[in-house]
């Protein structure tokens, strides 16, 4: 299942909206978008994941990668993830470095 990725800026927040499945095949698209988002220099990057039905470990790696790409003062938020996806993030302990919201 493909992943659709969109990128926009709302005030001081760069919004990445994902829909579909985030796995080894689709994560490279997300990586590219993260690099673009990091270039925007906003204080917050909000990743909207309500439309993500499944996230494999390659998707977790994307989040770690995102953390590395942005400056220290930038907050990365994951918003709207469904329970299995947010559980995957929490189990790996990534909720300690990114803000997991909703």
């Amino acid at each position, binding site marked *: *299942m493909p992943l659709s990725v969109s990128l926009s800026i709302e005030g001081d927040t760069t919004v990445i909206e994902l829909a579909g499945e985030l*796995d*080894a095949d689709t*994560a490279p698209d997300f990586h590219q978008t993260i690099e673009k988002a990091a270039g925007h220099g906003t204080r917050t990057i909000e990743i909207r994941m309500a439309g993500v039905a*499944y996230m*494999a*470990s*390659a998707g*977790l*790696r*994307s989040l*770690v*990668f995102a953390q*590395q790409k942005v400056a220290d003062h930038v907050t990365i938020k994951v918003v709207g993830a469904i329970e299995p996806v947010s559980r995957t993030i929490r*189990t*790996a*302990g*990534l909720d*300690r*470095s990114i803000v997991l919201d909703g």
Partner: protein
Amino acid sequence: MPSTTVMVLGDHPPPPGALLDALRSMDAEVVGATLAELLSCPVELLPAADVLLAPAEVPGASVREAVRRLRRWAGAPIVVVWTVADFAALEDHVRLGHDYLVPPFLPALVSARLLSCSERAELGRTLREADARAALMSYEKELEIGREIQAGFLPEALPVPDGWEIDVLFRPARQVAGDFYDVFELVHRRRLALVVADVCDKGVGSALFMALIRSLLRHTAEQSGLQHLVAAGRAGSSRRIPVVGATPLLNAVTATNGYLTRNHLRQGYFATLFFGVLDPATGSLVYINGGHNPPLLLDADGGLPVALDVTGPAVGVLPDCVYTLGYAQLNPGDTLFVFTDGVPEARCPDGSFLGDARMLDLLALPPSAPPRTGRDVLDVVDTAVRRHTGKAEQHDDVTMLALHRPRAARGPHAGRRAVA
């Protein structure tokens, strides 16, 4: 079907009637195009041809550029340039390696020339395909070598203490894997280390990190423990908590996490892992679950499996994080089932997952059921995974390890329940 396709360039001057007659008389499909079209239209719309027939009056460099674009899509045609008067222009083309036709345009001569060019084009295509196949075979060979080397990072044989059974199932999704397992002895064979881990993502990158993480864990654990065994021995401790195994365990996981976050954080690779240290004499287990799917402790008497929840984050993500220790006890008949996410996330052809709930159903034992070994557990789960996956592609590595303490065995501290 014509054996040859000739693309006739419609640029000025137009081809003489004799040349067109000769083309019509041979077994060839003729397509028209202009140089401007060949240079500007999207490559995926470019027509395919064996031979590109062009007037000598069009610049050689432009024809060469057009051929370059054609090569990217449908393969390069052989260029044949014709003229009736401009022999100087023809010479320029010949220097670029283009073939040529000059009057008289007799059908037999034209046909022979174009067919020989068409054969050259075919030969060129065959050679390119052979090159591509050879390149692919060479990649596959490299991957196969990678697979063999990686197999060397898994234990050759499992050291199984008396009174215990260990069974493993390891089925990578690709030639090289991100999953791994390890079983090795610690502190003069008084403790047994069991590791099941899953390096994030797939493919060669994960495989390289698997080799690194496995080595760091094992090396650190093996190098740190003896002094603490001595210390614990002097203290004459009677605690059931196996502090002896706890030190190499904590050292291995924190040192590996420290190394990865100091040196490799930018690459974003990390591993979820379960690392347990068993005291084979007592059945007590001390463990760290670093962001891994909770292993399930299956009681000999059935009932719901007990999940050994995470005690810290995945390894390689957070610098300076704290791992706490978890403790569990395996009594006679009990089984510890450790697995990677390839098990609950096995997918059937329509995309649905096997799921955690189904796994628990499979493992919950009715009270009347006959005793179950670790091998039985692996078989039950593996059968379910294979049935569920069916004809779908295996998406993720599948790794399972079952540590079982048979009922018959009685060590010096053999459990709280009497066995009939």
